């Protein structure tokens, strides 16, 4: 019963927000604030005639390529350096610096180097995803339980087998935690870089809309970008729950009633 009440509450809030939006549009004029109806219908029209899909595709392509190019080395590095903690220590201040520096601030540099095409967007995404994923994987590798390694060794596992059967599965939850953060950011960052300078993508649609004083276009494109960011987040969550079924649930009630 409570679940229904929460659902109804949320629908009420949604209606209230839409009403607020509509009122703002009336008060300030549709020139400045497009109406919810206009935005949503433009969104679906754009979707239908393929324009939104095309530009969203560019944005996704930038984020995906950048995500892969950034994440793969970031995941491999902590494993490769597992036996060389000294090297990890040497790199630490540089990694921290790279992590703390707002990489988005390097966007103009990448645009200068790679032009306004897809490469500059990929470069910015790579620079952000890499550091997030490096630290996530590093914490996963570090969280390794020595007793599990010992057990595997006693069973006769060699280095490679220990890495594959013990170290890797142990780090996977942390790797996913990193992806949960970095992949939605990848989309958002691609959009921002497109805003600065681009001729394709959702960020480009936003700029174009603004230049043509077509606020509805601006809102529709922002809506599209938001949906993408959230969708990527949910996708990672879904994949994680399938792959990580072995994890104990954090729900204490469920734990208490498990088999005895």
């Amino acid at each position, binding site marked *: 019963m409570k679940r229904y009440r929460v659902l109804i509450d949320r629908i009420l809030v949604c209606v209230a927000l839409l009403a607020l939006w509509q009122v703002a549009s009336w008060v300030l004029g549709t020139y400045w604030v497009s109406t919810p109806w206009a935005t949503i219908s433009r969104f679906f029209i754009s979707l239908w005639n393929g324009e939104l899909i095309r530009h969203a595709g560019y944005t996704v392509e930038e984020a995906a390529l950048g995500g892969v190019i950034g994440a793969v080395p970031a995941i491999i590095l902590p494993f490769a350096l597992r036996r060389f903690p000294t090297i990890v220590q040497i790199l630490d201040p540089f990694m921290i610096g790279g992590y703390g520096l707002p990489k988005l601030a390097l966007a103009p540099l990448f645009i200068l180097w790679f032009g306004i095409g897809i490469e500059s967007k990929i470069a910015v995404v790579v620079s952000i995803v890499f550091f997030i994923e490096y630290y996530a994987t590093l914490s996963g590798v570090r969280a390794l339980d020595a*007793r*599990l390694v*010992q*057990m*595997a*060794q*006693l*069973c*006769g*596992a060699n280095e490679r*087998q220990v890495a594959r*059967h*013990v170290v890797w*599965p142990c780090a*996977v939850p942390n790797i996913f935690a990193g992806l949960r953060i970095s992949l939605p950011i990848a989309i958002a960052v691609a959009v921002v870089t497109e805003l600065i300078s681009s001729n394709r993508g959702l960020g480009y649609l936003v700029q174009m809309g603004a230049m043509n004083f077509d606020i509805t276009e601006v809102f529709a494109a922002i809506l599209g970008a938001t949906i993408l960011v959230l969708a990527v987040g949910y996708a990672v969550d879904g994949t994680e729950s399938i792959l*990580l*079924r*072995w*994890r*104990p*649930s954090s729900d204490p009630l469920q*734990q208490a009633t*498990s*088999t*005895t």
Partner: protein
Amino acid sequence: MSTSPLLEVRNLAKRFASRQGREPAPWVIRDLSFSVRDGEFLTIIGPSGSGKSTLLNMIAQIDTASGGEILFGGDTIIVSDPKSLKPGLDRRIGYVTQDDNLLPWRTTLDNVLFPLEVQNRLDDKSRAHAETLIKAVGLSGYEKYYPHELSGGMRKRTSLIRTLVYDPPVILMDEPFAAVDAQTRVQLQEDLLRLWEMGRKTIIFVTHDIAEAVALGDRTLVLTKQPTRIRSEHLIPFKRPRNVKDIFGLEGFAQVYETIRAEIQ
């Protein structure tokens, strides 16, 4: 059963590395000697702090010794250089630790099959052997469960048969049943004896529980406190197969129990 010992420990000594500038650390184990025959079920009783785990760690080749030697089948295996340690002595020494150390991301069946997988011995025959063991300890139906879905006792059993599945000639056990409740413990002890009867492997079982040591073993050694040595040795006169549930009522049990308990006081 041959008469020459399978495993021999001579004047074993261990102390941990001291920090720079400090005095050398006290001896944990000093001048410890005993031997085990092939097929024998040896129990070792030690109070807390008697370095029981350290002793097993050294036999299992996962820790170095500071002195003395260990012989396995006549060959000296003890090692003082960490780099040349061979954990499990190439699968000839199994080790059931206090923590079950199951891989949380593997199901019960996959955990039991893990050593076979790693040793490249996974085939229909070994798989069938694993399933037999799973049934023998009452885990049928739980093959697809993950460790977090199992109770403590079930995880213990899984950990136990995981070591048994690849048939090491010697099996070390470090207080494997200490962390479960009394009823489960008795059940596990019975399961262990039943499984042991099937193969008659050599077992070295360490515990702080006198009753457990007497109920399970052919022979019991009592350890001193640090620096640990063998205090005494007791032959257990009871016939096999043993009924662990009723062991306290067994004739002669109380005497053996009391003798040992008085020693430890």
